[in-house]
């Protein structure tokens, strides 16, 4: 149980933070409804990306049941790619406002970058271990 939680919980927690953080903990600029501000779109996209991350985390927790351990490496790859997306949305794909003193650049951008990078690292390590475990099981 502990191993399953360790495998899936980081993705669930980071997913929730990525999804709701840009509106609560590390908010984007005021006037979130202003479509001319890139951070408005970043917050919207991250809500979707974070939601998918949380669902993948839940799937990782559940996948050890009923002999579905072989799904774990694939789910970790999916978490890795989704975490990369969470990182790329504010840094390259959509971006945040240009003003150096704007809240989205000061707080939202680094918070999303740190969360995305940490989850990429964790899912790469866990995916590698899960893949090795599946190969051992087959051997």
């Amino acid at each position, binding site marked *: 149980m502990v191993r399953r939680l360790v495998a899936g919980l980081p993705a669930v927690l980071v997913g929730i933070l990525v999804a709701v953080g840009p509106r609560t903990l590390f908010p984007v600029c005021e006037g979130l409804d202003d479509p001319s*501000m890139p951070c408005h779109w970043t917050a919207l996209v991250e809500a979707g990306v974070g939601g998918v991350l949380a669902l993948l985390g839940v799937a990782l927790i559940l996948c050890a049941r009923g002999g579905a351990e072989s799904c774990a490496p694939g789910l970790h790859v999916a978490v890795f790619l989704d975490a990369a997306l969470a990182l790329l949305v504010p840094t390259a794909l959509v971006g945040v*406002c*240009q003003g*150096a003193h704007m809240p989205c650049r*000061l707080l939202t951008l680094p*918070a999303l*970058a740190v969360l995305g990078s*940490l989850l990429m690292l964790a899912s790469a390590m866990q995916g590698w271990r899960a893949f090795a475990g599946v190969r051992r099981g087959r051997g």
Partner: protein
Amino acid sequence: MGGRCERFSYPLGTRRLAWENIRSRPFRSLCLMLAAAVVGCSLFGGSVLVIGLERGLRSVGERFGADLMVVPAGAARKAEAILLGGDPGYFHFDGGVADKIARMDGVERVSPQLFMTSLSADCCDALVQLVAFDPATDFVVQPWLARSLGSGLRDGEMVAGNNILVRPDRTVRLFGRRYPVAAKLARTSTGFDTSLFMSRATARQVVAAAQAEELDSPIDPVPEGAVSAVMVKVAEGHTPVYVAWRIRRDNPGVDVIVSQSVVSAISGSLRKFTGRVRDLSCAIWLAAALILAALFAGSANGRKKEFALLRVLGATKGRLAALVLCESALVCAAGGALGVALAALAVFPFNAYIGVKLQLPMLTPAPEAVAALVVASFAATAALGPLAAGFAAVKAGASDPCLTLREGE
């Protein structure tokens, strides 16, 4: 099983035995590692903050340039906000004041500057500070522009602060027109980061162009000969505070900012903050040393029979002490690496946010300083283990192995 036998198919040295001991007690090792991580995190994070703030303060001192800044009465706060806080603003007074001040005793040089603000069309409607200086008399802006500009600033050209969005064709858009950017300045953590610098002739072109365009937010007209601030260099042998007092007395309607006072006010807040960070880091280091010493001593007490068995198998007292010290060093080194990494994740991406929250100028330390801090914080944390485990190491081989093994019979 085969893998495990393979692992022990060669002699167990001190390091290997220490590593196996750490692996076999994961919870205890994790707790010790976390205690060490807190130390590593506080040492590295605290040091980076202190050095970053000190660097920011030096930058403020260097950029201020003049000994005194004469501004219209009531505009002193606004001027400080422009220079230090990066809050764009504008104000004017009659430029004739500059000539009057230049003739005063104790004044070596004066140079007028004009401040204007603009909406930047290319970036999020953020206000940009426009600073126009007089190249013939300027002694404030050009000395540090000289590092970025070899041949000087031509008319029509601008120099952009670090946070100004420069287009790929090295131009900036102002009031619907493009102007070439001669250089972009390094980050200063002051108002200069959000400023555009130009000569007074260029400023006149900008104002004329802005007035010709049909803009939603037209630029305010600047009266002919008006200036926003007169930068003053005080002559040798005169104190800036006394010259400032005389300027105020002889020129009603002006405020004088003494740069020394501004820098020392920031320096005062910085000293308080850095003092607290240093005290806290020392307190955490000492508290962690005591906690780890107690944990290692308690652990050595609980492992008396294990040590006695190793003695019976031929391990010397010195080998047991080395084993305890090696275990503690490995755990604290791992904790130190974790702590430094966590602090780096908190301090570097959020350094601008920390600076804004502390209301102090902050610049990231130079790469070589960061590398030195990483090594020093890691070494101080890794050294904590053997220091705290010294008593436990001595105690490990102190008891009689035969008596210890027969205890409880």
